[in-house]
Structures are given as C-alpha cells and as structure tokens.
C-alpha cells in the first residue's frame, strides 16, 4: 500500500461518509479488515451479517466510539483523527441509536432530548424544548415528555432515543441494531419511525437483521463476515441473486423461517 497516497487522502467528492482501507484489531484479533465504503447524501445503507462479523464495530468507528488503527474515515469531508475537537465536531453531525437505547435514567424524557441541543449546540432552552416536543410528536409520544425513561416500554424508549438523536439535527444517522432488544410487538413502531425518517431523505447507516425494512428503504445492502465486507449491492439484486457463497448461506439461514 503506497504510504504517500494514504497521507494525501481526501474524501471522494459526493460522499458524506467514506471509509478507506480501514483496519482495526482487538489485541491480536483482526476485527475490521480493509473496509471500504462510501455513503452518498441521502443514501440508506443497511449492514447485515452474522454476529461477530464486525458490523457494529464498523459503524461505531464512524463516530469514534471505537478507534480505527489504519486507513482513513471521512465524515462530511472531515477526517477522523486524534484531534478531539475534530471528533466532537463530527459527533455533532452524526446521530446514533443504540441497541439498548442508552437513555439517561435520571432525567425525564424531555431533559434527555434537550441535553445535547442546549449544551453542545448552545441553543436557548426554550427553543430546544419546542424542537424536542416537535420530535416527540413525530415519534408519537408527546404525552410521555415528563416521565422518566424507566417508566416507558422498550419500544417507546427506543423512539425517545431516536427523537433524542434527531434533536441534534444530525446530517447522518447511525443505527446499531435498534430493534434487537425489543419485544416482537414493539419492533414495528420503531421501524415505522425509521421508515418515515428514510422517506424524508435522511442519510442512514443501519445495522439490522430486519430484512423487510432493508428491502423497503435500503439503497445499498452491505454484507459483512469475519471483519470483511463480503458483498455490497442494491437490495433487489442482493436478495434475488447473492453472488458470494457466504452471503447465500447467511440469507438462507435468516430467510428460511
């Protein structure tokens, strides 16, 4: 790999997120192997793969919850480096929804929603509350604003978590298995919110096993296995005609029931 080419790297025009030759190790374990991915503005990327394939690690590298050790990651034209201010600037623009919601249990729903806007974006409290209520309407739980997260169902908590990310007015949304910790009857209410978000043109990178969702809203399917991107294709092609054996095996396992 030409080192000179790497140091002069700059993002490809037109991509809001770009991963170029990204590697990561946990000790001796090579968890991300030469990941290359470009995400255009408004593109919906769905990442799937067996557990331990590195898909969560990959999207967690995009807002630096994990550090990559080789290669380059660009978000909105800015490269992720050790510069903490650069990292904070990127995190402002990137919303993240976690598998376990990670709402702050000591705050009310509303306080959860206005924390980022008031402290990171320095928006006046009054305005932040208005925005927060608007997003709570959109995820259809404005009446829960003054409850604590512990008093809500899993589906409601995840919708609050999505609203919390949206309050920061992010340009890109990352979803890390947002429905995996939910009871079956609550999955739909969360997916509905995500579909709506996709229809509005939000750039999304979504790690999920919800293949129905992937088919409806996905622009690009990414299949990962053992730390590599094995296959990348539009959903129609991906589901109808997977090229790689590992993809075929994976799809046969998750679609067989």
């Amino acid at each position: 790999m030409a080192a000179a080419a790497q140091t002069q790297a700059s993002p490809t025009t037109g991509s809001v997120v770009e991963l170029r030759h990204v590697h990561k190790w946990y000790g001796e374990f090579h968890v991300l192997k030469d990941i290359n991915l470009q995400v255009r503005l408004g593109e919906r990327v769905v990442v799937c793969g067996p557990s331990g394939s590195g898909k969560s690690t990959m999207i967690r590298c995009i807002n630096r919850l994990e550090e990559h050790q080789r290669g380059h990651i660009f978000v909105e034209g800015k490269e992720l480096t050790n510069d903490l201010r650069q990292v904070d600037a990127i995190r402002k623009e990137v919303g993240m929804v976690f598998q376990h919601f990670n709402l702050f249990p000591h705050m009310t729903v509303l306080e959860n929603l206005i924390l980022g806007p008031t402290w990171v974006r320095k928006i006046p409290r009054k305005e932040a509350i208005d925005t927060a209520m608007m997003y709570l309407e959109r995820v259809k739980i404005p009446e829960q604003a003054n409850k604590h997260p512990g008093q809500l169902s899993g589906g409601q908590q995840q919708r609050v978590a999505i609203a919390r990310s949206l309050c920061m007015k992010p340009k890109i949304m990352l979803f890390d298995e947002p429905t995996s910790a939910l009871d079956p009857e609550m999955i739909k209410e969360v997916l509905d919110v995500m579909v709506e978000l996709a229809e509005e043109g939000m750039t999304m990178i979504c790690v999920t096993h919800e293949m129905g969702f992937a088919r409806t809203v996905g622009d690009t399917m990414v299949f990962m296995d053992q730390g590599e991107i094995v296959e990348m294709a539009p959903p129609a092609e991906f589901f109808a005609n997977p090229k790689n054996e590992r993809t075929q095996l994976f799809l046969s396992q998750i679609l067989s029931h």
Partner: protein
Amino acid sequence: MTDRTAAHEDWTRPPAATTGVIGWMRKNLFSSWLNSLMTLLAIYVLISTIPGLFQWAFIDAIWGDNPPEVCKNMPGACWSFINEKYRLILFGVYPYEEQWRPLVAMIIFLTLIFGSCIKPLWVLGKWIMAIWAVGLVMVGILMWGGVLGMEYVDQSQWGGLPLTLFLATFGAVLSFPLAILLALGRRSDMPAIKTICVVYIELIRGVPLISILFMASVMFPLFLPTGVSIDKLLRAVVGLILFSAAYGAEIVRGGLQAIPRGQYEAADAMGLTYWQKMGKVILPQALRITIPPMVNGFIGGFKDTSLVLIIGLFDLLYATRLAFQDISWRPYYIEGYVFCALIYFCFCFFMSRYSQWLERYLAKGQNY
C-alpha cells in the same frame, strides 16, 4: 357483576387477616424451635440488662446541682457531674464568661447545615452559597472576636462540640470534591494523572489518620519559611480532608464503575465534552448510588475527628476527659462518656436518617 352471590364473596376477596398479636407472634417469634429458642434468648438478654440500666440511669440517679460528696457510694448515675461540667464538655477551655459566643456560633453553624438539608429551601439555589459565606463569617467573628467589643480568643482555646462540628463538616464537605476529582483521575486515560491519583490514594489509605495528623501538625511547619505559621486547626482540617478524600475517591470510583458503558457512549455520541458528560450524565447517577457508603464514610469521619487530641486540639471527647480530670469528680467518668456518646449519637443518627431520605428522594421516578 351484580349477580355475585354470597358464596362467591369469600373467594373473590383476599383472605381475612389472620395475624393479630398472637398470630403475629406465632408467625415471627415462634415459627420453629430454633426461632423460639432465639426469641427466649433475646428476651433473657433484654431482661438482664435493660432494667438494671434503667435503674442506674433514672431511678437511682442523682440529678440536679449537687456537690460530688452526695454521689459518694450511691448506686445510681451521678448526673450532677454533667450538671457541673457540661459547659467544659461542650465548649472546652473557651473563656467561661465568653461561652455564649461559641454557643451562638454553633447555632448559626447548625442552622446552616440543617437548612441546607431541607428540600423547601433548595429553591434558594445559588443563594445558599452566599448564605453560607455570610454565616461562616459570622461564626468566625464570634469565635475569634477581637472586633465589636468582643475579647479576642485565640484558636488554641477553642474546644468541645463546636470544634468537633467544624472539623467534621469541613473535613466532609471539602474532601468531597477532591474525592470526585481523584476518582475521575484514577479512571483517566492520561497516564500521568492516573499515576498521581493512584499513588495518592494508595499512599494516604495506607497510613493511619493519626500519622497524617502528626505530619500536618509537626512536619508541615518545617517546610514553611520561618515566621510563617499556619493555624493548628487549619492544619488539622487539611489533614482530615486529605485523608477522607482518599477513602471517598474509592467510593466514588465504585459508583462510576457501576454506570453502564452505554451511558458513557450515549453522552460521547452526542458530542458532549468530558466535563459535560461527567457533570450531567455520569456523576449524577454515580453519586446517587454512592450515598450509603459515602454517608458511612462521613459518620466514620465525624467520630475520627476525636483523634485530633493527639495534636492538642480539645474536641468534644477530649473536653469530656478534661471534665473528669477534676479529682473530686473522677469516679463519674462513665456519666461523662455516656453524655458524650449521646451527643455523637444524635449527629450520626441524623446523618443516617437523612441519607435514607435523600436516597429515596433521588430515586423518584427511576425504577431501574
């Protein structure tokens, strides 16, 4: 609903309370032969101690203003000793005529403490700090004097309960922020800060409080230029703060470790800075769960202040001992210790109850 018959009534209702006094006793005190044995043993212990104690403390006791000779060879407690010496116990060797000053100072000080603990007064918000500042200046003026026609009283003459309260309060309150910083430092990614905090905590925890007080009192002045001297009380307070901060740091660290990683990640993903993340998200949760061990530490620290006697400060316990140095009252040291213990108990019990209330209050709405 309306056609429910009488026969239905008895199974649609919860079973009638079968407890009553006898029922309760059978269920809780005599449910098995082992339980019965324990109950009888407990009753025996109570019977063999309580009446005797009661007899000594109340029935046979000698109350009121009596000379020590009256108590001689009497079976009961000699509370006349407390009657005679309570001012020495409470205020130490503070000039007798001026003892209203530490009394008023102590009342102001306790009002500040209790006032800060009461929820309706929390609406004052930042004003509480200002009120404290004013209150402490008043306490200082009263204790030292030298102005407003009050005679100057050197700090070496302070003593008794006010001294114990000052030491305990400043030791606890000021060690708390230091403890938080040490705990955060110990979990820091920065090796230099981490090392400093680990070394500090392990070093201070590894030595007895007495040796720290000794160092603060005897060794510290050696490092100061000649002519400069720092108040002995201040040195003792600094020693107490440094000591309890090391213990507090480990308690806070435990709390920090109990907060799930997802909380840190959610705060990071939002773009909060380190101090925003800690101040708004992590510490409020971590400190709530550290209330019980923290208060445990404060209660311990409150009683540890009695060790300052080794550097010559007359705290409550030492003042009590001074009281029965008086040769004619010497046999009545038990009464002195009981009185002193009751005072300690009142404060410790308050702290304990308050922490339980605070825990419940902060847990409101968070059922996790």
